[in-house]
């Protein structure tokens, strides 16, 4: 029997993310909120993006994920310039190729653990097929959750609102990883965890990212996380002057 055909994926160049000449301003902001001349990410690379509060970290992630589009410049992911895609095509691209972990409270509180994990496949048919390659998607979700250390009785048990912060982060990581997206974006996922739990969570996350062959961009203002990553990028080093600011 032939295994379920894997969805043809865009040929992965060694640089899977490349930003150049990006200029972005939130509507009504007047000046550019973020300006990045160049940024790139290699396949399988784990990058920690550091910057103080208000430095534009979340805006950077919104641009990277295609939730917003820059006024100028290009953002290439897996060889596709997402700035040339329509808004709905960017949504589709994000659903298929990018897994996102938020800072906290990033689960639908009314859904079960499985509901929340499978939500990532709801708008991504190709990713769903990838997740289903080895069996039913619910089993794949349960396998991921088990690897991330979530107790089995919680998988189909209570709604996400009843989980601890640590458990929620594991579920959020499973949602980002299911279907093996090429890029994982994490927005301060460890900020609500204590030191020991931070290290344990990162270890689990890195293991799964490595297993999936994905690249990781994590945003944080916590420089102590730097040793865990291949590269550390300070946002204020790659972000050029903002319009109106002195050169």
């Amino acid at each position, binding site marked *: 029997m032939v295994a379920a055909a894997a969805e043809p994926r865009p040929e992965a160049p060694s640089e899977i993310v490349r930003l150049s000449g990006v200029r972005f301003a*939130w*509507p009504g902001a007047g000046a550019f909120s973020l300006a990045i001349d160049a940024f790139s990410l290699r396949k399988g690379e784990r990058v920690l993006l550091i910057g103080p509060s208000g430095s534009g970290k*979340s*805006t950077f*992630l*919104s641009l990277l*994920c295609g*939730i*917003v589009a820059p006024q100028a410049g290009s953002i290439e992911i897996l060889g596709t310039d997402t700035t040339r895609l329509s*808004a*709905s095509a960017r*949504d*589709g691209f*994000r*659903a*298929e190729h990018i897994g*996102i972990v*938020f*800072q906290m*409270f*990033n*689960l*639908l*509180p*009314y*859904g079960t653990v499985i*509901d929340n994990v499978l*939500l*990532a496949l*709801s*708008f*991504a048919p190709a990713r769903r097929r990838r997740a289903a390659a080895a069996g039913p998607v619910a089993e794949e979700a349960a396998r991921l959750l088990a690897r991330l250390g979530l107790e089995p009785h919680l998988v189909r048990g209570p*709604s996400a609102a009843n989980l601890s912060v640590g458990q929620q982060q594991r579920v959020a990581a499973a*949602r980002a990883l299911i279907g093996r997206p090429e890029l994982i974006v994490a*927005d301060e996922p460890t900020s609500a965890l204590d030191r020991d739990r931070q290290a344990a969570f990162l270890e689990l996350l890195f293991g799964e990212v490595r297993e999936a062959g994905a690249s990781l961009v994590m945003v944080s203002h916590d420089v102590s996380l730097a040793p865990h990553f291949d590269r550390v990028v300070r946002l204020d080093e790659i972000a050029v002057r903002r319009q109106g600011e002195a050169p």
Partner: protein
Amino acid sequence: MIVLRLALQSLRNRWLTAALTVIAIAVSITLLLGVEKVRTGARQSFADTISGTDLIVGARSGAIQLLLYSVFRIGNATNNISWPSYQDIASHPDVAWAVPLSLGDSHRGFRVLGTTPAYFEHYRYRQAHGLRFRAGGPFSDLFDAAVGADVAAALGYKLGDRITLSHGLGSVSFIEHDDKPFRIAGILEKTGTPVDRTVHVSLEAIEAIHVDWQSGARIPGQSVSAEEVRAMKLEPKAVTAALVGLKSRLATFRVQRAINEYRAEPLSAILPGAALQELWALVATAETALKVVSAMVVATALLGMVTMILTTLNERRREMAILRSVGARPRTVLGLLVAEAGVLTLAGTGLGLLLLYAALLLVQPYVDTNYGLHLPIEPPKPGELATLGVILVAGCLAGLLPALRAYRLSLADGMTVRT
């Protein structure tokens, strides 16, 4: 499909506010459809009350007043028709039959109607239904009475029971014709008309119980017993109104004009259908006002729903951001909230219909017995279904308001909730 499932899960998560919203919509739907049921029920009941009568004749008055007191037993006549005038009209060459009606007395709150046996022969309701007796028959003795179905049911009467009539129309009267009791000779089948709430006696009986009365009181020192009165000539001096059937419908306006121009006394002849139309025209404003109030109640309930969704929107922005992160398009977020409004309106409509039919089952017998208003329990008519459809669409459109706001917020928020 996923949008609907998410909408349902989200609503389940906020079940209390959602339930209250659904109840508010349901009550408003029940009110709207209930008002319509009462309105159409009242119209149908009125329209069904009299059929086959070409003209109603009474003392000179307005058409609606004459119709109300002669057929619906509502209100009183301003004057009577003298017996010779009635006889003159009854003998008109175009008149096929005439039934005199004499009103003014009551029995424990039910109207007493003095008439002739021809009443049971010619009175028609719901197009062609004639009066039928469930037990017994029309009056054969001077002091026989035939009671309507509701009178018998409400007072527990059976054939042979003795009753006394009261002078006047109060439900409790201190002026009783207790010296001349009546025997129940017949119980009519239910008709759904004022006949059910009427005690029928002969015209002669009405004359007999008033033979020793003058100006609404007994003549002092004069008392005529029930036995003595049987020997007297009991020809009525006047009647309240008369139902008239014509030999040909073509003669209707000719006979009407002749009666309206009657020289011996001022009389009115009305066409029941035309008088009913006049009545509807009169109450149309009130009906419209009721409809507008009901529609406003529905609008208020929908507004409440919009408020509920809007107030929860801020705390749900993270939920929207999560959906956007997994690839939901802004229009999916918009669809989610419209679907939520649609689900709430649909649930409110369904519950409203259930409440309506439960209320109808509960109050129908009471309203029928006490007000003679038959509220049919039947599936929603096309017009009512269309109204519900409009409300459903209005609910979804109302949901667009918070949905558009959520749409804008989801675009503005990006990866995080921007405050």
